[in-house]
């Protein structure tokens, strides 16, 4: 970085006005007899983006808070941050090189869709069982492992769909069994603190599964082969391929954006499965029952739905979704028993960011986290350093969300205060 003073100065300025804005705005709104639930969020974002100017205007006018008033200052704050970075580090690749930026963004979007899909499973489990599954990453890992063994080791050349299918069936079964054996006492009030029990028992499952797989397959990284090759396309023509150009493993758009085949196919499959899932949740009886239970357990039970059955289905289905994400990404990354840790934490970030229990929130959160990670890895010049920070980007987002808007972007009122009394 050329002028670190500028960057850190602006950063400190934003943080301090953000804190001031958050604290004071809440007070001002309270004193003026107004709704304060999002005042802290608006205040901090406005403070971070405009400093004292916007804050004083806000404190004088105190308009009722709308979602727009949260959105624009937040975007502005991100903008200010980016401008400060650009000024401080004018030679950075992600400042000068437009095509690099475009490529990073589209890759961030694509990977974000996959992240969002994985987080969807977590949200499903949470909204129905009220449990944050700490074993989510392990299901992801197992999904990938099974797919790798089926498609690459045991039956090379087999249709990858079969491998993915086997992975799904296996993880669904594991999830269902685990739920029956270990989560059932939570519902009957036998356990003193069910939420903590849920955390610890899934934590235990994660630990067990991870080392079980490691004991079986060893700790060396493995790599599955690509599921599909792209057909060779040159558009408009081979001599002047500016629109789209594909090789077997890569796709290039406008000569600038390059997307690798495994990620692309994974994202497409995620979208397809997501549509199928949405159909399942909205059109079939079981899906409707699931949603009913997530909204009101007692009412659903009165309507003749067995909530316990739904618990099993939700846990198994949620775990299977994680496994599916793993099965599709095993062709993109090298695979280890420990590979689940980072995606699991990313999923936590995404569901908290999107709002625990919200399905669209999971996707939105996934895309945001994907973009943040792309920006983080792209803009830190030292590659090794950038890679080491990967787990941290999401966690910064998580901590910011928990501090500013614990309900998440699209969250229902599962706010931190009420959750835990589930």
């Amino acid at each position, binding site marked *: 970085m050329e002028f670190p003073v500028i960057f850190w100065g602006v950063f400190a300025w934003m943080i301090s006005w953000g804190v001031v804005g958050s604290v004071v705005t809440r007070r001002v709104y309270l004193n003026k007899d107004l709704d304060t639930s999002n005042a802290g969020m608006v205040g901090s974002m406005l403070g971070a983006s405009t400093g004292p100017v916007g804050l004083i205007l806000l404190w004088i006018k105190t308009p009722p808070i709308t979602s727009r008033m949260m959105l624009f200052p937040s975007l502005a704050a991100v903008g200010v941050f980016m401008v400060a970075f650009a000024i401080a580090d004018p030679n950075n690749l992600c400042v000068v090189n437009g095509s690099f930026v475009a490529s990073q963004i589209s890759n961030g979007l694509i990977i974000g869709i996959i992240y969002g899909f994985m987080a969807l499973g977590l949200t499903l489990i949470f909204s129905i069982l009220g*449990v*944050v599954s*700490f074993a989510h990453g392990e299901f992801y890992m197992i999904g990938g492992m099974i797919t790798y063994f089926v498609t690459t080791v045991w039956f090379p050349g087999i249709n990858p769909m079969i491998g993915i299918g086997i992975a799904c069936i296996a993880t669904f079964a594991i999830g269902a069994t685990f739920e029956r*054996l*270990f989560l059932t*006492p939570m519902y009957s009030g036998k*356990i*003193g*603190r069910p*939420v*903590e*029990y*849920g*955390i*610890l*028992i899934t*934590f*235990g*499952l*994660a*630990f*067990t*599964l991870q*080392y*079980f797989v*490691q*004991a079986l397959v060893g*700790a060396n990284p493995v790599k599955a082969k690509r599921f599909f090759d792209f057909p060779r396309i040159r558009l408009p023509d081979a001599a002047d391929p500016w629109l789209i150009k594909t090789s077997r493993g890569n796709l290039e758009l406008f000569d600038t954006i390059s997307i690798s085949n495994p990620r692309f196919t994974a994202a497409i499959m995620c979208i397809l499965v997501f549509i199928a899932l949405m159909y399942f949740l909205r059109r079939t009886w079981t899906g409707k029952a699931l949603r009913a239970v997530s909204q009101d357990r007692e009412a659903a039970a009165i309507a003749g739905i067995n909530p316990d059955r739904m618990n099993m289905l939700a846990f198994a289905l949620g775990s299977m979704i994680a496994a599916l994400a793993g099965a599709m990404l095993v062709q993109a990354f090298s695979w280890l028993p420990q590979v689940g*840790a980072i995606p699991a*934490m990313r999923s*936590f*970030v995404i569901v*908290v960011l999107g709002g*625990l229990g919200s399905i669209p929130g999971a996707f939105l959160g996934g895309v945001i986290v994907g973009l943040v990670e792309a920006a983080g890895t792209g803009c830190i010049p030292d590659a*090794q*350093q950038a890679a*080491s*920070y*990967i*787990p*941290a980007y999401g*966690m*910064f987002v*998580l*901590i910011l969300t*928990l*501090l500013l808007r*614990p309900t998440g972007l699209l969250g229902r009122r599962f706010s*931190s*205060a009420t*959750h*835990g009394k589930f």
Partner: protein
Amino acid sequence: MLKKTHAPQMIGLVLVIFFALFPFVYSANDYPYIMHIFITGFFYAILASSWSMLAGYAGQFSFGHMGFMGIGAYTAALVSHYFYMSPVPTNFCTEFAIGDSYLIILNPIGVTSSTLAQDCLKQAMEVWNGSVEVTPIPVWLSITLGTLMGGIFGLLVGALVLPLRAAYLALFTLGFSEILRAVISAEIAITRGQAGIELRYMFEDGITLFGRRFEQTDKLPAYFVMFFLLLLCLGILALLARSKFGLFVRALREDQDAAAALGVNTTRYKVMVFVITSMMAAGAGAAMAHYVGIVSPNNIVILQMSLVVAMAVIGGVENFVAAAIGAILLEFMLEMLRSSFVIGPIEVDMTTWRLVVFGVLLMLTLRFSPKGLLMPIIEYFTRGHIAKETVAKRDEPKMGDASRTESSQ
């Protein structure tokens, strides 16, 4: 006269005497190895018992405990790696006068370039040519600093998590610990990243105790340091648990709003429990770092946190002594299970399977004996008589107006 309720105390005393005498009595070939297991066991015992205070007593299920341990360890490592005292200024390094001597702070030079020219102290020593004696920061001081740093971060995290409960708290603290690990792995220039940073051994120059000479590699001094720290922690925890602090944090765990309505300053106690337990974790981390001689970001991974959680839960998360004993026993078990064996054609590599066993044990304990495996034994002695007593008391005839109304029902 000895009563049944005193049994846990007696057993505790026996255990303390056992551990105090063990290094003198035991003399098999694997002496250093067994001693190492116990030192590590004590380390985990401090972590598990302080975590049990945090999670079991106060109900704050934090997954950042290993992060605090890491803060202690890295503070100690950085202090012992970068800070020196010298009677004369070097004129090369950053330095501050303290009294008649100078505190020297080395410039960070990372892993790759440890050439002489970049190390300011080496340059100065070359100039002095042996005429000046530079002293490193004493180990006790760096452990103290590590502990304090843990307390500062505990205060920070404790204050930030005030509004968070249950799953959100777990996620926040997990996030904290992961960020910490990422920062340590990434800032290679200062922390040396994954390679780990070396620091002075606890008794770098050996030590003479009661006329016996112990070299740097001898386990006995470190064993007693760790053992002493464990006893200190258990002592503090016992004091806290018996005082109103213990009562209040348990009330807070049970119902924060009700506790506040009865006059308990919940904010203060929540932050305090974070600070105290973080200091314990950080102190243990700093001492362990000085014993092992190197710390790396791998000490803070989730696996380590899982171990502590599992040890505390299997011992009994709602009793810090049970958690501590559980930790020592499980550490012992984990090491004993290391030896691989062969059944017919199958060779079982126990180094990984033992962790599977451990995980299954954790899950089964949670499911079938949520209070842990040791805690029910302690409760049998301390609370076993209560149900009988209640019945006996209820049945004995009573005086008084109101009581008759009830017993007549």
